[in-house]
């Protein structure tokens, strides 16, 4: 097996697409992430949302809330957009593209959380949005510092040189952590009361895959 970048980090390289020095590449690692992003995007596209059980207070009676598919059209759309942004983030071979995809994931996550009408959830979405916006600073800052010190943003060119400054790597990680904070805000917003499981799951998928990808980038460059 030929290891990508001659580094024992992510297994064999499968194939790559060359655009000049920007090379989107699939290693075993990124291909696995890609596959999972596709699977969850398809689940979000084709699953019907679950029906929430509600108990009538003070009695034994309970009923299942009916949700019409058109009520969740926006949430489904944003979830698919989020999945697509995740796909981009896990395969791109360019650090700036990665940061842009990360920011897009942030925006779509805001959308998924905010498409619930509850005041509580909207509040959480707003707070999360502010964190995601602030996280743009270290995210873009990290990428900019890498470009300024090494003269390139291509992971393919940077791999194994160790030229990227450690501060830039830390900033990049901080940025991704900020963009991928959404699951915690979901927990905070008691999203148990909101419906649309396949879409809410997308928030989780995107932030975890983003985190996994940034760990790989930081180790490789």
């Amino acid at each position, binding site marked *: 097996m030929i290891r990508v970048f001659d580094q024992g980090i992510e297994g064999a390289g499968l194939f790559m697409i060359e655009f000049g020095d920007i090379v989107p590449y699939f290693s075993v690692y990124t291909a696995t992430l890609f596959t999972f992003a596709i699977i969850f995007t398809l689940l979000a596209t084709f699953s019907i949302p679950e029906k929430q059980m509600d108990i009538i207070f003070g009695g034994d009676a309970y009923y299942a809330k009916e949700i019409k598919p058109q009520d969740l059209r926006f949430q489904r759309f944003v979830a698919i957009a989020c999945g697509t942004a995740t796909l981009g983030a896990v395969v791109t071979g360019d650090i700036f593209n990665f940061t842009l995809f990360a920011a897009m994931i942030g925006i779509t996550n*805001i959308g998924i959380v905010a498409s619930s009408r509850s005041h509580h959830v909207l509040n959480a979405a707003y707070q999360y949005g502010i964190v995601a916006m602030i996280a743009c600073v270290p995210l873009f800052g990290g990428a900019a510092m890498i470009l300024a010190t090494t003269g390139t943003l291509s992971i393919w060119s940077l791999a194994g040189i160790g030229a990227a400054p450690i501060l830039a790597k830390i900033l990049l990680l901080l940025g991704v952590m900020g963009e991928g904070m959404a699951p915690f805000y979901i927990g905070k917003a008691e999203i148990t009361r909101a419906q649309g499981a396949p879409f809410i799951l997308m928030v989780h998928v995107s932030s975890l895959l983003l985190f996994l990808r940034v760990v790989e980038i930081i180790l490789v460059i």
Partner: protein
Amino acid sequence: MISIYQSGLIAAFICIIIAFISLYQETDDLHRLILTDLTEIMALLLIALIATDLAEALILPGLVVMIAELMALAEIYLVKEGIQRKKNSSALDIEVMQTAPPILAGILVLYGIILSGFSGGAVAGLGIIFYSVCKGSDELFAQIETASGYAWVAWIAAFFIFLLLPGQWFFAVMIAGGAILIKVMAKFSLIGTMGGDPGV
């Protein structure tokens, strides 16, 4: 020895720290939203420190993404606080606004077409802004959007002509110039339609 880049970096970090401290101390939601915009500019500052042509190429997408986030957040803020826009009557309700628009707008659009390209689009767009501010615009919005979409397609098509049939470059330039004219004009005129319509 501290290079210019490093001193710039230090300055940028001082700015970022100040911005973050202000954000930390602010508790009002709306003020925090505005302050986040301030911190975003610091991100642009960091990118601008690269100081090559690439910096420009990176600032634009970064800016677009940040503005998208800002707009999404602003929208959430409006919904969250239950703020409804009130339809206010036009402040400039004077007689000349009923009669002058067609003439002035026509002149501006014509001049814009003569200029052509980006600046032409801006001038012509100004004409349409003026027209729609004065005359009101209920169904104009959708039409302008459609025109803008077709212009975009024509612009892309012109690029394909450049790539595939370089011999026809003049034709492609004409298409691209016309399309960018319509596109910029449409973008500008959208500002005009936003004036009176409560839904926008």
